[in-house]
């Protein structure tokens, strides 16, 4: 199995084998971060640009660390400090960045489909670091990596995703990835936060948190993005916690070794209690650590594939 894509835009279009290849590559990179000198020369001489149109600390820093551990040069562009504020289009911005002979553009954008659009217009590799409500493939890959590390496999697992499914790119990418690897996925949220037709993505839907937890081997708890609730569709924060919050009491009725994940940053006391966030079942910080290995793998694979594509074109 070879990775042949110049970009990573989403998990929807990936095959099971491709996802497994990223996970295996990440596994081999994980060790690098435990060395005294945390660096390999895999991307030496390559330039990675982080192009972030939305505030993000976690994902941006994770990509920066990943690129640096591969010995790439990294530049981060935030919209506040770029000519994007002057009305430049995403395509023009992308082409200008490419004119600097950049190899990989990591893009975070509030419009669904933005990463794919950029990828069509530049020869550099594009890695989607989250586009609108559409996909956040590296987050799902690191979630799956962590799960596999903890439970040894993905096939046959019951995984519940709880929270604002409708507006979540993390949920969508997780659903595609988990389903392709043979997990049984349940999504759980108030009805207003379940998007129409989602069953057709191969998931079960429930509005009962206890039902979602009962059989679950793992629960992925999404951040309730109250700050983005433009349409005022969210339930009251306390009300949400009462009905859907993950608490120690609820976990007691779940499987003993249930894995609790969260993409961060956590709203303590809204999605989950502090006790759960810091408790024995939580792998939240391990997710952060694994994020580095997974993003190293993705940067490495797309760079290698793009090199191959360029060589073929010059032959």
């Amino acid at each position, binding site marked *: 199995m070879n990775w042949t894509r110049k970009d990573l835009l989403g998990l*929807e279009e990936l095959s099971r084998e491709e996802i497994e290849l990223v996970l295996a590559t990440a596994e081999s990179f994980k060790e690098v971060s435990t060395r005294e000198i945390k660096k390999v020369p895999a991307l030496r001489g390559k330039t990675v640009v982080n192009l972030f149109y939305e505030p993000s600390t976690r994902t941006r820093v994770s990509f920066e660390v990943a690129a640096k551990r591969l010995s790439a040069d990294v530049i981060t562009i935030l919209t506040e400090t770029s000519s994007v504020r002057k009305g430049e*289009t*995403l*395509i023009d911005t992308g082409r200008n960045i490419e004119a600097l002979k950049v190899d990989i553009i990591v893009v975070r*954008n509030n*419009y*669904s*489909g*933005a990463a*794919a*659009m950029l990828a069509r217009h530049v020869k550099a590799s594009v890695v989607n670091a989250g*586009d*609108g*409500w*559409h*996909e956040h493939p590296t987050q799902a890959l690191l979630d799956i990596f962590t799960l596999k590390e903890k439970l040894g496999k993905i096939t046959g697992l019951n995984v519940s995703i709880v929270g604002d499914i409708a507006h979540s*790119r993390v949920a*969508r990418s997780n659903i595609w990835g988990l389903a392709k690897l043979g997990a049984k996925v349940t999504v759980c949220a108030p009805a207003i936060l379940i*998007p*129409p*037709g*989602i069953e*057709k*993505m191969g998931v079960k839907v429930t509005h009962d948190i206890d039902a979602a937890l009962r059989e679950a081997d793992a629960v992925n708890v999404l951040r309730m993005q109250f700050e983005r609730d433009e349409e005022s569709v969210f339930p009251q924060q306390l009300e949400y916690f009462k009905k859907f919050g993950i608490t120690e009491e609820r976990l007691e009725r779940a499987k003993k070794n249930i894995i609790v994940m969260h993409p961060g940053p956590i709203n303590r006391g809204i999605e989950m209690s502090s006790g759960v966030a810091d408790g024995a079942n939580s792998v939240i910080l391990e997710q952060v650590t694994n994020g580095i290995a997974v993003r190293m793998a993705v940067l490495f694979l797309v760079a290698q594939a793009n090199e191959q594509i360029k060589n073929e074109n010059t032959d």
Partner: protein
Amino acid sequence: MNRSKTKILIKNGRVVDPANQVDAVMDILLEGSRISRVANGINDRADTVIDAAGRLVMPGIVDMHVHLREPGREDKETIASGTRAAAKGGVTSVLAMPNTSPAIDCAGSVALLKGIIHKTAAVNVFIAGAITSGRQGKALTDIVKLKKEGIVAISDDGASVDSDELMLRALKEAKKAGVLVICHCEDKKLSAHGAVNLGIVSTRMGLRGISKESEYKRVQRDVDLAKKSGSCVHIAHISCSESVEIIASAKKKRIKVTAETAPHYFSLAEEAVSGFDTNLKMNPPLRGDADVAAVRQGLADGTIDVIASDHAPHTENEKEIEFERAEFGVTGLETELAVCITELIRSGVLDWSGLVKKLALNPAGILGIDKGTLRAGADADLIVVNPDQEWVVQKERLVSKSKNSAFLGKRLNGVVEYTICGGKIVYQL
């Protein structure tokens, strides 16, 4: 007979003219701007003789839903470029929608538009005026005055008149003035900010959805208002099964309603848009497979009277951007006939007479214009079509100023070889 009139003789074509129950190989002689004779074995001397053996000869298309963008957005399209695209597509009459800048909402702007048409149009351009001033949905235009200036229909297309009371008054005024009311059926409270059909595709793409309710609830309202007022309403761009059902049931009750759909609604389903191609973004959006089937069935059983392009040109700057920010709409003048042939004739949804009704005879009748027929004495608006020739829709070969076709790269059947408008050859392959 005036010997100075130019004569065109079209020989041996299969003449499809449902207005006169004709579907047979015949000759047609054109003299000046009119059809002189339709018969077998015409051997008159003519200035131009077209051998149409193996070709179809039919009335030019009457496309009652076209955005020509002039005045105001000449970067997208002009009367000149749009009517040349029309000629290439076999369209000899268009109804120009009034959502220009300024909107066609007063006698002055109609006069301005007529001046541009007179100077630059390659085919017949009929004018739709706005229902409300500035298409703002607040104050009715002076429909009688607009009619006097020459409009044949009114529409706020691109927007729906939200107020029931105002819409009812518009229908009553239009009835008095003798103009058709064309309804863009969309409740923006229900469709607001949506980009694609609400359902699995909007869910997968992570986009806000446009519900079918936003369309069919407004169709139902306008049908109800047609009943109440006794006026005719014409429902534009039907896209979903519920709308088709509402119209079918209204027709059974003898409510004076007619309906139109566009080629993309019977040939493409929502799945096509999942790659974020903004050339597949239009309003109403592409719907589900069952809706596509319902629209095709509605065409076959007569519920849907008209096929019109909803030609909506946009510049690349307005389309080559993030999906949610991109403009709604696709061009269609140059592809509509071929899409109809490929999707409806070849699969047996319509026969040739049926297709000519949808594309020419019915819209002419609904608009009350004397077009869509090949009887002797009628305007010489007709086309010669090679129905089998395959072609690929290529950006570079489109005549329209804008290239936002939903069918780029698609293989279609059916090529227009001649378009004759008012007795003049306005397009020749």
